[in-house]
């Protein structure tokens, strides 16, 4: 038992129990994505429709590989937190928990798959 008053335990954390962590994460990842996504749109747009060799050549370039890895990782973390907010707005109880777990698993699965493909192409 920790000798904390109820007020001390609650201070700065609000109803979520995590304070402004979620909000701050969306802000940080959002600004990060704002810097890299426009470049990525052009890289991906130009690679789309090419032959397999052209696609491999594009994504094997170190700059493009790192950029794509960042867009996937940061983008999907940003998506996960955003989707969680939506789920929390429209569902409750078991449905809410199941959906949050499903979205989390989907995001990590997609990130791992994307990074695996990138590693295979670029290394």
């Amino acid at each position, binding site marked *: 038992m920790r000798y904390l008053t109820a007020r001390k335990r609650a201070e700065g954390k609000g109803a979520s129990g995590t304070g402004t962590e979620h909000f701050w994460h969306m*802000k940080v990842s*959002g*600004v990060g*994505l*704002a810097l890299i*996504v*426009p470049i990525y*749109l*052009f890289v*991906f*747009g*130009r690679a*789309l*429709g090419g032959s*397999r060799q052209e*696609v*491999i050549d594009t*994504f094997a370039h170190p700059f493009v590989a790192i950029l*794509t890895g960042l867009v*996937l990782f940061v*983008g*999907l973390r940003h*998506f996960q937190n*955003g*989707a969680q907010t*939506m789920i929390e*707005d*429209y*569902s*409750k109880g078991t449905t809410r928990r199941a959906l949050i777990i499903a979205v989390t698993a*989907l995001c990590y699965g*997609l990130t791992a*798959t*994307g990074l*695996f*493909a*990138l590693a*295979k*192409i670029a290394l």
Partner: protein
Amino acid sequence: MADTKPVERPLSPHLQVYRPQLTSVTSILTRITGNGLIVAVLLMVWWLLAASTSDAYFAVADAVVTSWFGDLIFTLSLWAIWYHYLAGLRHLYFDAGKGMDIPTAEKLGWGLIVGSVVLTLITLLLV
């Protein structure tokens, strides 16, 4: 703790009692575009995985991704990402406590709609 029985609260955003306005519609669109982008990410990761695997697998994924269906998804997603991008910038501005008065908020709303279409067309032209 006294009574911990959960209170029956309505879920947001109370669409049944809310008159659509430019500010609310542009806010809802931010959510739709952001969440909808997962479709493009799924297609893109699948296409990359196929490219890393084999010629035969790439042929299948590439056929889907460059079909009319793929073109539709990626064109809509391009608009969605630009819309979400501008909406995110607007969020940073709002979070700083600026632009909250109605005339400015409405101008920013139109800025999102027009700006996202313009940026989409520019990207389509340049790519």
